[in-house]
């Protein structure tokens, strides 16, 4: 029979963990994309938000709908309109892109605001199976 104090410790830790998990995994409101004129135009032109691109997808960046201060960070790393990029990894959180020869990680909230034109249909790349 284990010392009741052990149970106590376990109970406290479990209790705290439950509270913490509950706080942390609160369901967020459905993420509605702002459907404005501009984005409607994008969709009509065949563009998609970057988050819609699966792994190994080749795309061309068309528009960065982000704040000024962020846009410079993106430009510095080579993400300018007209740049070719490839999705290396999409882990559900940030996305990993191949841009101008280097690898750039983008937070998901940013990836939602980058509009791209998917140019090459998904193909099997050497060594990496399809998503």
């Amino acid at each position, binding site marked *: 029979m284990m*010392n009741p104090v*052990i149970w106590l410790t376990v109970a406290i830790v479990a209790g705290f963990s439950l509270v913490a998990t509950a706080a942390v995994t609160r369901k967020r409101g459905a993420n509605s994309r702002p459907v404005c004129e501009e984005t409607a135009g994008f969709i009509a032109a065949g563009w998609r938000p970057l988050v819609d691109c699966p792994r190994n997808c080749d795309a061309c960046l068309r528009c960065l709908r982000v704040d000024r201060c*962020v846009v410079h960070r993106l430009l510095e790393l080579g993400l300018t309109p007209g740049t070719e990029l490839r999705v290396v990894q999409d882990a559900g959180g940030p996305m990993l892109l191949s841009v*101008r020869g*280097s690898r750039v990680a983008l937070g998901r909230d940013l990836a939602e605001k980058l509009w791209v034109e998917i140019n090459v249909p998904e193909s099997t790349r050497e060594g990496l199976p399809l998503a």
Partner: protein
Amino acid sequence: MFTADMISIDRATVSVALAGNPNAGKSTLFNALTGSRQQVGNWPGKTVEKKTGELSHDGRRLMITDLPGAYSLSAYTQEEIIARDFLLTERPDVVVAVLDAANLERNLYLAVQLLEFETPAVIALNMMDVARRQGLDIDLHELSRALRAPVIPTVARNEEGLREVASAAIGAMSEPTRPFSLDYGPEIEAEIAALLVEIEHSPSVAGHYPARWLAVRLLEEDRDIISRLARLFGGMALVERAEESRARLFATLNEDVDLMIADRRYTWIHQLASRVLRSGREDQVSLSDRIDYFTTDRRLGIPIFMIIMWVVFKITTDVSAPWVDWIDGVLSGPISRWALAALGALGLEQSWVASLLVDGVIAGVGGVLAFVPVLLSLYFALAVMEDSGYMARGAFVMDRLMNRIGLHGRSFLPLMVGFGCSVPAIYATRTMTSRRDQILTGLLVPFMSCGARLPVYVLFAAIFFPGQATLIIMGLYLLGIVVAILVGLALQRTLLPATAAPGMVMELPPYRLPNARSIRNQMWLRTRAFLQHAASLILLSSMVIWLLMAIPTGRQGEFAATPIEDSVFARVSAAVVPILSPLGFGTWESGGALISGLVAKEVVVSTLSQTFGTEMEAAGIAGGSFLADLREIITSFMAAVVDTLRALPGIIGINLTGEDNVAAPGLASAIHSSFHASSGGHAAAAGLAFMVFVLLYTPCMATIAAEKHELGTRWTLLSLFGQLTIAWLVTYVVFQIGVWWGG
């Protein structure tokens, strides 16, 4: 004129600035050039590291400043501002731009801006080995011609090309500058020309900034430049002109000017790259990509990260432990004996001077030196992770989880480091991009139970929960994490709301083998910085406590020879007893130990042994000769080496070390009975409560010093009192539940 006239060719000292992208090998180049002749500090008023060093070459002295890595010279991040300010105010003789040959286009974006500064420049085209492996063939002549600067191929990690860079730097200083300019297109160039005329008419402005560079910056609406110009005579007029130019351009081009400028830069760069790069298998799936396939995978990424973190953790605790013991043994053994012998020669053996020296100074110094092996191994592990490129993957993988609790992936590293020691963890928060993130992470670091608290857990778990010690200790670590999460959430909603900080934008450098020299450098320089900073504080506090223990309160007992319960220390500790009573350990012994824990958590156990009147380890009075002592130092050194080697397989789970012995039985029973009494018979609950209090309460002086250094006084005070309060509340709850449950 902005640039000084280059008349004198044989100036003996040449000031060189090293600039480049992060991960372009700039630091490797810097280390290779300067070797050990370098200094690490801070840029004044900032938390960014500043490295300077020197090199002798061709009869000249090159003073090299390693500017922070940046992707451009706009003014959006601290690193960029620092780099830019240095170039503008210090006006180095030469700028060496370090470019990654395998990533030429992106690297040229910064290079082009550096060249617009009109400072004599040299291009170090680094990582040529990687480029060659990728089949890239670069036309150096054409590149040099287009950039109007010498281009030197280098492989910094193999020290190839270094001499040529140094020579080129010296040479560039004496050659007339051939101004570099990039064609931004007719409309923008027209506006630039108009602004240039204006600038020439304002001598005070023209004297501070390169003209064309300034014109471009004004068109880009660079806020930093605009605010500086406002302070110069004629500056505001210029700013207004630029405003008009921008408006005209927006009307004509139908696009923001700064975006156009960036776009034109990249177009120019792209055209140059297509002329200069030949037969590259660009954007192939590299080995790095294959590894990343696993390390950034949705399901595998985090477990892999956890395993690696565990290895780091083990390295800092198990591998450094034998050395901590060795230092401790040497100091309390031979060194103390030699000190006493020296004092004996002066006849001061029995006096309080001896006690001050041995129990105060040497113990204090030991307290500081004991940190050194821990820090060295920690910095080693961190340097390997960073140099290899894995650190960025860690941040990538943890980002989503960390976002949920209001932090970023980058916060995870300092928190992990905090499990070893809080001090380097606080310093590691420098890598945070925003101040708010840095503060929030820094405040949570102390909740990651540091290595120094472990002896307390081991002792108390062995006394009160024999047989379930590991479970209890793991529970404590978990409790620390949980409290940290809750505190983080609370802070997020109150004092530190999430700024509208944009999400993560981060480059993941390719994996590579860590460079031994840079690791060695980082280990040593950072440890030295810590020692300089914290040593005085710990030393001082140790001596204060010694003093308190030495001063007698009663009529009996003399200075430095009183039994501890009659000292001022006991009186002071007694003052906190009422606060501790509800927690189950309201005795002056416990209070005293906790107070001493403010100096360093390791001290808690030794103070407990002092206050409960039992000697933990005799300091080996029967000292032999000097030679015998030397032999002892060396044999214990060898033993430490053996223990370290034994600990290494332990990292992957193979345990070769013997089990640690339980504490001296005398101490154990003394503590047990004391806690039994103070808690009204609920010794185990009180023991657990004590451990929880040690886990959560105010961290040691060194950590406080680091917090003050990195986070500022206000937040440090919040941390101090906040942790005390949280510790008290949680411990109270734990104790009361323990009493109720235990029956």
